[in-house]
């Protein structure tokens, strides 16, 4: 088990050294990666996933706790250094949820301390709107239910030390709760996002430009407050959505009512 991943010595698309030539990723922290399409977000992730040793396009070197990772460490994470979660993902196995979770548990080697399938399901149900029933078929789950199950599975059942969350803003789940669940598990969380609420959830923002790391911004106290304000605003939208979803009319619902529900 290690504590930090360091990334250093990269070059941007024009062959110039990156503005930020050294950055350290620590366990339990959330890093938002922001930047325009083509700015090098995916490449940064790939450098980390492949534990690049300076040979890649960007020449970045990835160190684990200050050392070049050896063959042993690489083999240890053969099944994946990064667990992925993205908006495009779907379940394609037509198996009952609980059967799938049981099968998945069986496949794991005995050295792993596993969470029970029921626990994963319960956690998923905290995030989703409609409850997932154990014998529901995976492929029939709604978008939000499927995403909740994926998140709970990655948070509780995955060995990968790094989690990559790629644009899950429209997943129809409690995203703030989902993020805090993932961070609680002492993982390094990387979020690629265009959603301000999610981006501000990270305690550090990595800004990409022209293939290089352009700047690293520590979330300020002011931004943290702003994030709370936006979260409350978001909650109001959630409440309104829930009212509409459950067939209620919005008669008499105004700013004040929404505010009081929050408190």
């Amino acid at each position, binding site marked *: 088990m290690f504590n930090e991943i360091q990334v250093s010595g990269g070059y941007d698309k024009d062959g110039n050294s990156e503005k930020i030539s050294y950055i350290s990723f620590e366990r339990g922290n959330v890093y938002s990666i922001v930047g325009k399409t083509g700015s090098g977000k*995916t490449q940064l*992730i*790939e450098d980390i*996933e*492949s534990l*690049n040793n300076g*040979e*890649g*396009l960007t020449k970045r070197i990835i160190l684990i706790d200050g050392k070049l990772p050896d063959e042993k460490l690489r083999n240890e994470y*053969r*099944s*994946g250094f990064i*667990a*992925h*979660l*993205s908006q*495009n*993902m*779907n*379940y*394609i*196995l*037509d198996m009952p949820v609980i059967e*799938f979770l049981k*099968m*998945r548990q069986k*496949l794991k080697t005995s050295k792993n301390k596993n969470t029970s399938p029921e626990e994963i399901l319960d956690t998923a149900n905290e995030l989703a709107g409609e409850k997932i029933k154990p014998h529901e078929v995976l492929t029939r789950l709604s978008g939000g239910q*499927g995403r909740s199950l*994926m998140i709970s*599975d*990655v948070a509780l*059942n*995955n060995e990968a030390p790094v989690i990559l969350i790629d644009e899950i803003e429209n997943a129809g789940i409690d995203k703030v709760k989902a993020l805090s669940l993932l961070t609680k598990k002492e993982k390094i969380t990387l979020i690629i996002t265009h959603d301000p609420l999610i981006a501000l959830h990270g305690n550090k923002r990595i800004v990409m430009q022209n293939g290089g790391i352009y700047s690293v911004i520590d979330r300020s106290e002011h931004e943290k407050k702003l994030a709370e304000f936006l979260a409350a605003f978001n909650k109001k939208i959630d409440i309104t959505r829930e009212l509409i979803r459950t067939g209620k009319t919005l008669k008499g619902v105004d700013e004040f009512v929404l505010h009081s529900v929050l408190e």
Partner: protein
Amino acid sequence: MNTIIIGGGPSSGKTSMLLHIISYMTHCGLKPSVCKIDCIKSNDDLIYKSMNIPVIQGLSDSICPDHFLATNLPDIFMWSTKNSCTHLFIETAGLCNRCAPFTDKTLNICVIDSMSSIKSPEKLGPLVTTADIISMTKTDVISQAEREVLSYHLSKLNPTAEIICINGLSGFGSQTLANLIINKSNSIEDLEGSKLKYPMPSANCAYCVGEIRIGKDYQQGMINKMSF
């Protein structure tokens, strides 16, 4: 020259994957060439040509593409040598999962479409079991859990192969694979005398040579009848 054979079902992402690998290898100063083996006319050679590398296409027509490749392999190798290439990529379709086009002197990569393979990985025969590298494509659209389940099954079928996830659209993973190819493939003088890793089907019946009529009278040669 290093020879790499890439096999995998239709539309599994072989070409998309290879395009990313070639662009990376060219960037590294290497000189790759591509030979594309197909049964029916395809336009993939045009895509490769746009990368300014030596490209040749072989159409197997009425013959099984794996047989076709085995017959033409030494000549393809000579062609690439004459173009003074460092790496020869042979992309070939595996149609029935019965065989694998791989040899003992080439680096063999099998491309698996995660979408279609997760339900029945056991159906993938020698293509998986005789590969040196297994590359899982389209993993970006299946869940992390399913990705792990599939890679577990593949590692049971072939415990020695490296398994890599590739996104043919974004190119994610292709650099890792390209470096693996550069480090794992061996340079050889020619392919004369190399051996197939898995024998081709032993069928040689009337239908193999163009018979189209159905019926007892026409079932000649080496045949295999079902028992009921």
